[in-house]
C-alpha cells in the first residue's frame, strides 16, 4: 500500500503548482524507492521507458513548417477567413460556426491558428459582441449605454467566446494523430504494458466525442441568443424602474422644496 504515496506526490505536486518536471522526477524516484527498487534499477527504468516512449515527443518535427507558415501570415489569413463568416450572423450562430471551424482545423493539426491570444481577443470576442449589439441595438438597455452592451451581458458574451475556443480545441485536436495526448496514450501503453496501439486508431475513437461536443456546445450557443435577449429585457425593466424611481425622487424633492 505504501507505494501509493507516489501517486500522492503527483497529486500534491500538481495541485500546489510546483514545476511539473520536478514533480514527475521526484514522484518517480519516491515511488521507485517505496516499491523497493534499487537506485540503479530506478535509473534503468527511467532510461528504458524514455527510450521506448520517444514517439510522444515527435510532433516537434512539424514545428519548422508551422513556423514557416506562421511567419508568412498563417494566423492572419485564418482571421481573414473568420472575418468573412461573421458579418450577418447572431452571436450564437457565429460562435457555433467558429466552434465547428475550430474543431475541424484542430483535427487536421492546425491547433495554433486559434487560441485566446491569437483569435479570441482580436477577432472572436469583438465580433460576437458586435453581433449582439447589432441585434439588440434598439433596446434601451443598449442605447442608454452608448450602443454598447451592459457590462454583465458583455461579460457573458466574452466568456462564451473564450469557452467556445477551448471546447473546440479540446474536442477537435484528439482527432489528429500527432497530438500530445494521443502520443502520450500510445507511448505510455506501449512501453508500460508491452502491447501495440496505433495512434490512428485512437484518433478515430476521438471522433464520436467530438461530434457529441459539437451538438452539446453548439446547442447551448444557439440558446445563448435567447438567454441574452431575456437578460437585456430584464436589464431594460430594471432601468425603467430605476428611471421612474429617480423621476419620483426629483418630483418628491420638488414637492418638499
Amino acid at each position, binding site marked *: *500500500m505504501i*507505494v*501509493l504515496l507516489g501517486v500522492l506526490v503527483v497529486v500534491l505536486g*500538481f495541485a500546489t503548482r510546483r*514545476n511539473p*518536471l*520536478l514533480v*514527475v522526477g521526484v514522484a*518517480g524516484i519516491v515511488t*521507485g524507492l517505496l*516499491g523497493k527498487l534499487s537506485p*540503479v534499477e530506478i*535509473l534503468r*527504468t*527511467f*532510461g528504458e*521507458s*524514455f*527510450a*521506448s*516512449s520517444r514517439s510522444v515527443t*515527435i510532433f*516537434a*518535427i*512539424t514545428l519548422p513548417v*508551422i*513556423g*514557416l507558415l506562421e*511567419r508568412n*501570415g498563417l494566423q*492572419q489569413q485564418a482571421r*481573414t477567413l473568420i472575418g468573412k463568416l461573421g458579418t450577418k450572423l447572431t452571436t450564437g450562430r457565429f460562435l457555433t460556426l467558429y466552434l465547428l471551424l475550430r474543431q475541424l482545423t484542430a483535427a*487536421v*493539426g492546425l491547433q495554433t491558428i486559434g487560441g*485566446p491570444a491569437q483569435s*479570441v481577443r482580436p477577432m472572436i*470576442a469583438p465580433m460576437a459582441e458586435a453581433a449582439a449589439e447589432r441585434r439588440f441595438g434598439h433596446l434601451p438597455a443598449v442605447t442608454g449605454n452608448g450602443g454598447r452592451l451592459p457590462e454583465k451581458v458583455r461579460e457573458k458574451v466574452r*466568456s462564451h467566446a*473564450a469557452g467556445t475556443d477551448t*471546447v473546440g480545441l479540446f474536442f477537435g485536436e*484528439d482527432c489528429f*494523430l500527432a497530438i500530445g*495526448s494521443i502520443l*502520450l*496514450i500510445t*507511448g505510455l*501503453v506501449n*512501453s*508500460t504494458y508491452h502491447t501495440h496501439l*496505433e*495512434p*490512428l486508431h485512437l484518433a*478515430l*475513437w476521438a471522433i*464520436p*466525442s467530438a461530434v*457529441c*461536443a459539437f451538438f*452539446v456546445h453548439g446547442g*447551448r450557443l444557439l440558446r445563448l441568443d435567447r438567454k441574452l435577449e431575456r437578460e437585456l429585457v430584464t436589464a431594460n425593466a430594471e432601468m425603467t424602474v430605476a428611471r421612474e424611481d429617480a423621476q419620483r425622487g426629483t418630483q418628491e424633492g420638488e414637492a418638499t422644496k
Partner: protein
Amino acid sequence: MIKSEWFFWLVGAVFLVMAVQMLFDRTNPKRHGTAAFWGLLGACFFYSTWVNEKSLPAEPLGIAVLVLICIGGFNLTGKGKPETTSEEERAGLAARFGGKLFIPALTIPLVAMVCAVLVAKWKIGGTPILEKGSETILGLGLGAIVALGVGMWVLRERRVSVPLHAGRGLLESMGWALLLPQLLAVLGAIFQAAGVGDQVRKLTESILPDGQKLAAVALYCAGMFVFTVIMGNAFAAFPVMTAAVGWPVLIEQMNGDPAAVLAVGMLAGFCGTLCTPMAANFNIVPAALLELKDQYGPIKAQAPTAVALLGCNIAIIYFFAF
C-alpha cells in the same frame, strides 16, 4: 525498408541543430541552459536506439533524463528573439499568399493518412516499405518533410535555415513543457515497475462489485475528471487512472477495446480541464486577456458542456468499447 529509428534520429538531429542555433543566439539571456536542454534531448534520441536494442546500458540515459528534468525544472531555459516578420508584414504576406498558406499545413495529415492506410500495405521484394507497427509515426515524419518542401515551394523560400529558425522560435516558446507528456509516460512505467498498478487494482476491485461494467466505466471516466480537476492536467491524471481502472479492469478483465477505452478516457479528463482553475492557461489566462471582471467567466460558460460530455464519454465507452 524505412525504419522508425531513422525518423527518431531525424528528430534528434533537428533538436541538435536547433541547440547550436540557440547557443549562438545572444538575445537569449539563458542561451547556455536552453542549448544544453535541447542538445541533450537530441543526443538522448540517438542513444535510445541502442538502449532499445539492449546493446548499450540504460542507466546513463536515466541520468540524462534526470539532468533534463533539473535543467527544465529549475528554470535554466529561456527564449531569444529570433529574427521574424512583423505583424504588418505578416498581414501583407497573408494577403499575397491567401488560401495557399493552408496547403502545406493540410499536407501533413493527408500524407500521414495515406501512409497509414495505403503505403502500409506496399511491399518491395516481400518486405514492407514502412516498418511494421510504426506506419502512422513514419507517416507523420514523411508528412512533415513533404509539407516543408511544399511550403518552401509555395512560399518561394529557398533557405532551409528560415524554417529551422522559425521552428526553433516555437520550440523556445513552448520550452520544457514540450517534454512533459513523454516524462508522464516514463512516470507511468515507473508506477508499473514499482507495483502501483497492482495496489490500486486491489483497491478498486474491493470497491467495485464484480462484473459491473457500467460502474467500472463510470469510475474510470469520473476518476479522470476528478483527478484532472485537482491536478489541472489530464495528462498527469491519465497514468494514474489507467493503472488503477482503465488497463486492469476495463481492458484486461472485461476485454474492452484498448483504443476506444483509452482515447475516450483521455477526453473524459479533458472535460475536467474545462472546469478547473488549476488549468490556468486554458481558463484563467483567457479571462485576463479578455479583461473580464469575473475570472471564472470562461469556466462558468464551459462547465455545463463539460458535465454533459462526461456523460457522453461514459456512454460511448459503455456501448461501443466492449
